[in-house]
Every structure is written in structure tokens, then in C-alpha cells.
């Protein structure tokens, strides 16, 4: 059933929904940015120091979040893929449980942990390591910790998948030929799992670029990322054309990363 040319029609209702309530509003909103017939709002977004700083902040945070997720996520994905089925299942539960816990809940918990009178500062002060609370919240560090926590599962899952695909005979052969663990890791595991690493990095980086909730709550108005700026422009400044220009910049960056990623992975996926 649903073969040949008739196969298109079942897709139609969903496509109409996407057209009317997704494509149309997004294009309509982006159109506001050039309403005046000039590119002034883009010049403002990409030229004024204040906003350039926000873009740079966003980029820097996304890059660091990706890096930390990779450093924490690779060992995790690797262990889950190479351990016994029981521990793999346990590992999955502990990765998926936070993934399915509302971002709000997790962000709230980090506020409790990192605040001035939060758990960490209390512990540090009681241990005599510091006499004054260390600012961990409403700054760069707080946003970074919260975002790494939220996005880590997106790094772990593709890496897990990539490690699972490697034939265990290959690293075993390398070991049999006398290669050290270090060498086996860099010469066998790394190249063979690069696709998963790449997929995870792209996913985490792109999700970080457009992230709103965690920077809005943990940044406390001091660490402004582009998504937060867009929200402020719409709801507080009521400046739709500028919000639209910022959205176009964010969207272009997102697409650019995806396109680059696809170009890089093409030979592998074409297998």
C-alpha cells in the first residue's frame, strides 16, 4: 500500500501544518528585519560593540560547552559501549534520566547548588577553603556548568553508537601486535569513532547557540546569549525588526554549521 505516486497525499495534512504554522510565521518574522528596505538592523546586530559582544559570548559559550561535553562524554559513551549489558543498561538509565528531567528542574537545582548561600559555597566555607562565597551563579561559570549538564546526553548517545559499531577484533588485534593502550586509543578507537564524535559535537554546538532557558535563569541578566537578547528585544523593547535580524543571524549560523557538518560526513554516510 501507499506505493507509487499516490504516496504523497498522506503527507499533505502535516505539510500544511508546517507551512502555515512553521514556515510562514518564521519567514514573516524574518521579513521584519528588512521591512525598511535597508540592512540597518543587520548592521546594528553585527556592528555595534554591545551586540557584537553578545554574539561573541554566544559563540564562546557554545564552543566551551561543546568541548566540555566531549571531554566528559567520550569516556562515558566509550564505557557504556564496552561494558557488560547490565552496566550498559544502568549507564543508559543514568544518562536518560537527566535527559528526560525538565531543563527547568535541572536549572533550578543548579541555582540551589551554585548560589551565594548554595550548597557548594556552604561546603567550601565550612571546610575553610574560602571565607567569602565564590560567585558561581549569574556569571559565565554558572551558565557553562548548567549548559554542559543539560547537553551532555546529546554528546554521549552518538559516541556510544559509534563505539558500538567498531568491530572489537580491531583493537584486540592492535593489542595483540603490541600496541599500548594509549596508541590503540589514538590510532584505532579515535579514527573509527570520529563520526560519532563529530555528530555529537555538531548537535551540542548547534543546540548551545540557540539555547534560552539555562542562560536566562543562570546568567541572571549578566551573561547575555543571543536567544536571551532576541527574547528581550521582542518582549521588553518591542523591537521586532531588530529581533528579526538577530534571529536571521542565529538561523544562518545554525544552518552554516549543519551544512558544514554534512559536507564533512558525506563520504561516510554515502557508504
Amino acid at each position, binding site marked *: 500500500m501507499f506505493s507509487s505516486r499516490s504516496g504523497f497525499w498522506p503527507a499533505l495534512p502535516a505539510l500544511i501544518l508546517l507551512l502555515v504554522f512553521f514556515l510562514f510565521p518564521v519567514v514573516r518574522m524574518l521579513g521584519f528585519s528588512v521591512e525598511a528596505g535597508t540592512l540597518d538592523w543587520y548592521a546594528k546586530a553585527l556592528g555595534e560593540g554591545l551586540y557584537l559582544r553578545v554574539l561573541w559570548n554566544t559563540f564562546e559559550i557554545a564552543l566551551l560547552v561543546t568541548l566540555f561535553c566531549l571531554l566528559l562524554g567520550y569516556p562515558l559513551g566509550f564505557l557504556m559501549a564496552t561494558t557488560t549489558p547490565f552496566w550498559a543498561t544502568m*549507564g543508559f538509565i543514568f544518562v536518560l534520566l537527566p535527559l*528526560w528531567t525538565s531543563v527547568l528542574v535541572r536549572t*533550578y537545582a543548579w541555582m540551589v547548588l551554585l548560589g551565594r548561600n548554595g550548597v557548594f559555597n556552604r561546603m567550601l566555607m565550612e571546610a575553610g577553603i574560602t571565607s567569602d562565597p565564590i560567585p558561581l551563579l549569574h556569571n559565565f561559570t554558572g551558565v557553562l556548568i548548567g549548559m554542559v549538564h543539560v547537553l551532555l546526553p546529546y554528546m554521549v548517545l552518538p559516541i556510544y553508537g559509534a563505539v558500538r559499531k567498531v568491530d572489537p577484533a580491531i583493537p584486540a588485534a592492535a593489542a595483540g601486535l603490541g600496541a599500548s593502550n594509549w596508541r590503540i586509543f589514538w590510532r584505532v578507537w579515535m579514527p573509527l569513532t570520529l563520526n560519532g564524535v563529530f555528530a555529537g559535537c555538531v548537535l551540542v554546538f548547534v543546540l548551545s547557540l540557540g539555547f534560552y532557558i539555562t542562560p536566562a535563569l543562570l546568567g541572571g541578566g549578566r551573561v547575555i546569549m543571543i536567544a536571551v537578547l532576541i527574547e528581550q528585544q521582542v518582549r521588553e523593547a518591542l523591537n521586532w525588526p531588530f529581533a528579526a535580524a538577530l534571529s536571521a543571524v542565529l538561523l544562518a549560523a545554525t544552518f552554516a554549521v549543519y551544512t558544514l557538518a554534512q559536507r564533512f560526513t558525506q563520504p561516510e554516510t554515502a557508504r
Partner: protein
Amino acid sequence: MRSLHASRLLLIGFCALVYFFLMLPLLVVFPISLSSAPYMQFPPPGFSWQWYERYLDDPQWIDSTWRSLYIGGATAILALALGVPLAFSLVRGRFFGRIVVDRAALAPIIVPHIIFAVAVYGLFAKLKLIGTWYGLVIGHTVLALPFVVLVITAGLRDFDRSLEQAAEGLGASRWQTLRKITLPLLRPSLVSAGLLAFISSFDEVVVALFLAGANMTLPKKMFDNIMMEIDPTIASVSVIQILLVSVVLVLIGRFGRGLKDSAR
């Protein structure tokens, strides 16, 4: 694997720390929700149900919880009704522009949520749909559609089509085959897709922030509360939300197609 021992232990130790980091927020939220202290304090000085009572006694919290539940339910139904036929088209159709349809179906997860939220807010403000439950259902359905399509297309790709051919060979009509063979065989995927769509709506904050207006959903009410004060009521609401989502995940594990399988 001779000399693997030391490095393996190191790996396990490192991963234990990462797992601790992953679980840390949950480890904090549970005790705080049961704290007897009148304000945020950790570790809690004693045990009490006061924050759960406060949640249950507050009609605003209860209202927003119900609203989130039925918006989630309606989103799941609508997303399935639209997404399942779309998935059939993508897997079994051979029409011009299939790739475009495929990309379009996944676009809502690629475009950052804030952009979609702002865009749809602009449109719905014009259409006077802000604050209506069905406005939110439409917004959430757009976001849930890719999940449904991913899960159902995965299910359809593993589908044994000879069973359908056998039914048709034995004289079943197309409709009979769909109802008696195809959909029952696809049920695990359908259950997973529906529940995922439900969770994606139930948890959704950004679109709700813009579209909900005065009619709060649970995440929007939580967001506003967190913005204004760190009140332990949030902890009890968090625990309730975690439990609800866990129930849904157990249901997926029991009746649905494993999440692992649909992770592509």
C-alpha cells in the same frame, strides 16, 4: 586485553564522577522537596510534606498542571494523526520532492526554539490566539512532529512487508490490512511516538513562555517562580514532574519500542 586493567579502572573512576555530576541536581531536588525548613536550606534540617501540601493547596499550581496534561494529550493525538501518515509517505512513497518533505518534517528540531517561539508569537498575536489552549497545542504539535516522524519511520523501515502482502493475497482490502495487520504490528512505535510527543509538550517552556499568556502551563509557572524566588515549592513540583515523566518512560519501556532502537 592484558594491560587494560589500570586504564580501565581509571576510565571507570572518571565516569563515576561524570555520573555523579549528571545525577547531582536530582540528588539535591529530592531532599529539598521534603525539607522542614521555612526557606531554602541544604541539607534540610528535618522532614516534612509542607512543600507538597503547598503545591496541592494552590489552585494556580493545580490549574497549570491540568492545563499541561491536556495540552500534552491533545498534542500527542494531533502529532500522531499528522505524523504517522507523513512517516508512511516518507518510507513507502516514491514521489518527486520526497527529500524536501523529509527535511521539512525535521526542520522544527533544527531551527532554534526561540526563533520559532518568537515567530509564532507574532502570528498568534495577530490571530488573537495568545492564551488559548489550542494555540499552544498547535505550537507544540509543530515541535513534536519530528519526534513522531523519526520514531515511526524507524519502525516502518524494520517492518516485514510480506505480512501485508500475505493479507492482501488472502483477499483483505487495503483498509482491512491497515487496520488488522499494519497498525497492530506498528503499535510499539505508535506508543513510543505518542508518549514522546506528550513529554515534549509537557516539558516545553520556550514556546509556552510566549503563547500561554495568563493561562499558565506547568513549565511556564515554574519558570516564572524560579525567576522571582527560589522557593522550595519548586522542588516539590520538580519531583512531581520527574515522577510523571518517569511513569511515561516506564510505559514506553513496557509497551513501546525501546528508545535505544529509535535513536537511529
